[in-house]
């Protein structure tokens, strides 16, 4: 008799029914992929990164393919936190998956202020703090590479909210364990590992950088081995849950992250390639647990065998 595996996990105070989360910037404001499936079926949804003011983003071109990867310099284009709460959040009212709001600011104060704006708002289940975006000059990069600044941002957000706080780290550091620990001490409830890797592409015909912004963030299958290693490192370094992401395209990839100890995973670029990717990963994980006779997906998490 087939068991019905329990897929639910806890990510720093937020219980989600399965460990598959749509990643920020790759799932719009949460409803765009509804023609393909009901987003309620996911563990959670992280919406596009939001700032205090609406942001137009970088001049195009903003994206370009690289081998097994995608380079982007969107420049954190977004409609701003207020418009999101007013116009987009109501559209998510019927969505049974928790909505996580991804925020970024240009100063520690802006992060706190964003947390403050969100605090009273129903329908937002957690905050993901982007301290890692490589695209905006005064943005994430500065915060995410220095343990002290990263703590300050975290602390500022934690103090202004009762919602679970997830801090999303940048991979562009010498040792992610250092930042992970700093952010944990500052009160983060969970970590997301990892944001995009800095990269560049040149058009040899025009002799120009392909992206107007010159530098972009690399995502997709190309980064999977590196993201998996960083997740593994972060899991070793901290006690709070780690959400793994980077190049996850299917349930097999997701299982690799769970095995090294990720409590949940996020699906980013895969949404572009296969709009049903995240849902298929939920199904794939369920089938895998059934086949392997796992009654609880938590038994899979961190069960990597090393000797």
């Amino acid at each position, binding site marked *: 008799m087939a068991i019905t595996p329990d897929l639910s996990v806890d990510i720093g105070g937020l219980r989600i029914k399965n460990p598959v989360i749509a990643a920020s910037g790759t799932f*719009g404001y949460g409803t*765009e992929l509804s023609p*393909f499936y009901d987003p309620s079926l996911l563990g959670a949804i992280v919406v596009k990164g939001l700032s205090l003011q609406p942001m137009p983003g970088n001049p*195009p071109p*903003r994206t370009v393919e690289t081998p097994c990867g995608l380079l982007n310099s969107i420049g954190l284009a977004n409609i701003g936190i207020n418009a999101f709460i007013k116009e987009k959040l109501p559209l998510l009212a019927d969505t049974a998956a928790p909505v996580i709001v991804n925020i970024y600011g240009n100063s520690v104060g802006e992060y706190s202020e964003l947390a403050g704006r969100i605090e009273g708002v129903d329908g937002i289940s957690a905050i993901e703090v982007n301290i890692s975006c490589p695209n905006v000059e005064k943005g994430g990069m500065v915060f995410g590479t220095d343990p002290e600044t990263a703590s300050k941002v975290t602390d500022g957000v934690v103090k202004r909210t009762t919602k679970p706080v997830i801090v999303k780290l940048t991979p562009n550091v010498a040792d992610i364990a250092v930042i992970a620990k700093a952010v944990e001490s500052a009160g983060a409830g969970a970590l997301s590992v990892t944001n995009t890797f800095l990269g560049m592409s040149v058009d040899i015909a025009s002799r120009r950088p392909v992206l107007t912004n010159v530098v972009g963030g690399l995502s997709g*299958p190309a980064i999977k081995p590196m993201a998996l290693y960083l997740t593994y490192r972060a899991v070793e370094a901290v006690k709070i849950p780690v959400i793994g992401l980077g190049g996850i395209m299917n349930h097999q990839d997701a299982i690799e992250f769970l095995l090294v100890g990720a409590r949940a995973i996020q699906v980013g*670029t895969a949404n*572009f390639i296969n709009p049903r990717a995240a849902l298929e990963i939920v199904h794939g994980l369920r089938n895998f647990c059934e086949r392997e006779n796992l009654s609880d997906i938590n038994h899979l998490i961190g069960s990597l065998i090393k000797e």
Partner: protein
Amino acid sequence: MIEESVFIEFNRQMGNDIWLMGFRSEALASLAKPGQFLMIRIQGNSQDPLIRRPFSIHGIGEGNIILILYQTVGRFTSLLSLTRNHDQISVIGPLGKGFRLPGSKQGAVLVAGGMGLAPMYFLAQALPPDARRNAKLFIGFSTFQGAGLIDLIKGLGLQVSLATEDGSMGFTGTVTDLFEQAIDRDAPEEPVIYACGPHAMLKKIAQKAGRLNLTCYVSLESYMACGLGICLGCAIRAARNQDTEYYYVCKDGPVFSAEIIDWEAL
């Protein structure tokens, strides 16, 4: 908007580097409007190329055959030209906002630069019979790509004029020159201009239309990672007087009214 895995019914070389592909899809045939596009991926065991590629819906043939007209310009399109009958591709669509058809009193002028021809066949198909007979199509290529391509769209009954930059066939020069001369000489009454092609060409057409105060729709291109409005990659700058800084080609377009685009930034 659907995602479908379909089998290729045919994939035929139409010119030096231009191919016509067809696959059957009842759903797309019933949903699609001229000017809309699909995001295509070749099914298989490889993650390179990774990103889907956008292609206009060229037209709809007998038996719900969706037509794609494409040029081999790089890796993806080369791989696509190597696919054979019964190979599988995944398509997402129909995407974006299509062409607004001309009013009953308006005449249609279609201007296609190179692969800008792609959406024009479907647009022509969608014109009412009368409008279609009176419609003019200007096509330009750098060099003649063979008669097959032109005959296909001529078969719809519109008035087709061809320009080649090297003079290998038809008018010698760019399609813009051809269009400008023709529109000055003998413009239909209340013409609506539909243009698709390289941005430099579209800019000229838009400027000409502006000077003549004619309605002009352009179909634009932009690098697309998703085609679904979620990556925010496909930005193009809006004209200064618009209430946004950027439009997104995949959801606000690919067809735009020429006057809302910032042509200097393109």
